[in-house]
């Protein structure tokens, strides 16, 4: 994924890019492309950092992604679930109840890849290892 200058983007554009990166992450996970996963993780971190610098309200642009469910036939369930998973992780400190409910929902009935990751995220949370900011 090409590095983008996220600081120049509007919040809505960042949300779009967030979706795009998440979809690519789902592909990388599904196809087992580890190097790609690292690249996308770093890319997403840069995006999230840009959003955080704008304050907690800006992050709320991601709230709709907790229920990301596009009608496009080109988006598969694992891809949509990855968007929700990433949004939930990022919003745990902003809308904790909604974010946690999303993680629990994914853990309970999400596609297997995202279900396991959501479950592990909850475990890190509950163990106190992961402290969302």
């Amino acid at each position: 994924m090409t590095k983008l200058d996220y600081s120049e983007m509007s919040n809505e554009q960042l949300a779009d890019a967030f979706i795009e990166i998440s979809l690519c992450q789902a592909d990388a996970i599904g196809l087992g492309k580890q190097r790609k996963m690292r690249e996308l993780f770093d890319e997403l971190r840069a995006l999230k950092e840009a959003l955080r610098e704008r304050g907690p309200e800006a992050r709320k642009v991601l709230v709709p992604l907790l229920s990301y469910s596009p009608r496009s036939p080109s988006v598969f369930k694992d891809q949509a679930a990855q968007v929700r998973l990433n949004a939930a992780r990022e919003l745990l400190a902003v809308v904790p109840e909604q974010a946690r409910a999303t993680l629990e929902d994914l853990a309970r009935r999400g596609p297997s890849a995202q279900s396991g990751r959501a479950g592990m995220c909850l475990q890190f949370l509950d163990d106190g290892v992961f402290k969302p900011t």
Partner: protein
Amino acid sequence: MITAALTGRATARGPNRPRTLICTADGVWLWPGTPLTERRGAVLVPIPMSQLYQHVATLHGPSVHPAMLARAIARAAAYLNQARLQDADDTLTAVPLPLVSFDGAVLMQEISKRLGVRIPHVAVAGWPNNSPADLFEQLAQVHDRKLAVALTLEPIFNADLRRVAPADAPFDPTLHPRWPAGQSDGGRFRPRDGSPIMPAQGVGTAIQAARQLLSRLWPLLRHVPKSPKTGESGAPSAAPLPKRPTSEPPAEAPKPAEESSPGIGHNRPPDDGVPTRPEPENSPRPNDSGVVRPNQPFKLPAERPTGEGEVARWGQRAADQIREALSQNDTRRLTEIADALAQADWIKDQFDNIIAAQDPPRSLDELIEAAQEPGRRRFGYDDHHIIEQGPQNEDVLREIINAPYNIARIPRYKHWQINKYYGEPQEESGGLTPREYLKNKSVQERYAFGLGVLRKFGVLK
């Protein structure tokens, strides 16, 4: 085959008698899979008497006694509610039904041809009427929706099939294929597919593959598959499984990612510049389950995807879809998925993995014992090291890594998912991969983490 009217009576009584009425823990059934009971809460009750009569008279003729039939079904249902399966079965055995009518027999033959299920060896009485042949074909179409139930119940209606089938497995029609009913040797076993001899009625290999897959999926359902509604006046499904041409590719199969134009879901990075918003309709829905397009048909690419890992990825998608359908007891969806899988030759080597992925979580003892089975590898499963093998755990004694308590046999897809997870940076571990995160942890912590991963990925109870 149907006993000729010459005999004038059924061939046997007792548990192995030919029968058109049977019961399972989930209800009373008329051949091939018409439910004569329904659930109200936790209780089984007979369907209304008029419907009972309508269904049973279709096979046994108009002289069926409705009140007597209703009493018998009610009694059987009451036994089933008390988990007294044998008593329910005895009740059904004792129902003095008229013999199968001639028209009923013709209808059974037609249904048998459409669904590929065996006709019980029942006695037939009466004479043909002037009903046009296509009437029976139309009536039989109504039963297309019952394919799943009919396949499940086939060994119960046909005691000899039960003997052929392994004690703990449903009868697999692809392992014991038969010539279709309605021809001179109908019902007799025929050579398996791959032989130059093909069945006269030409059941395609894709259909056979779908049936094979389905026969492995039905036992995973928590109940006998849900049947269509008892009122059967609805139109038959638009594309019944047995009628579908084998060469027909799945409609509108999604292109492999490499072939798609850049956009949402493709596997390539976006071009330079700001990505465009992929979907405009992402309004929040608090109770949304994350299920995308629940009514969208399950489709696979017509051609084998060429990208690395693509075939397995489609297999895992199929496994996820099947898991969802199983959890909802949605046999229509299961049939649709099995059909799509059967049409795609390139995914057949994933079937074992797909089936194994449906395993429920198991106890640690079960997983460890399975891995210790001497000399037996099971298709669709891998041996997984709870504390991983590899350089990341080179500081752990080999005796620990290779100890029986550290090796669990788990479904292959789950194994792959877990391996990928271990190699992927995670926000919750500070951007480290789980392998990196565990690097300085104690052996006990690594083992506990490994068990946690197994639990969260649905392998361990």
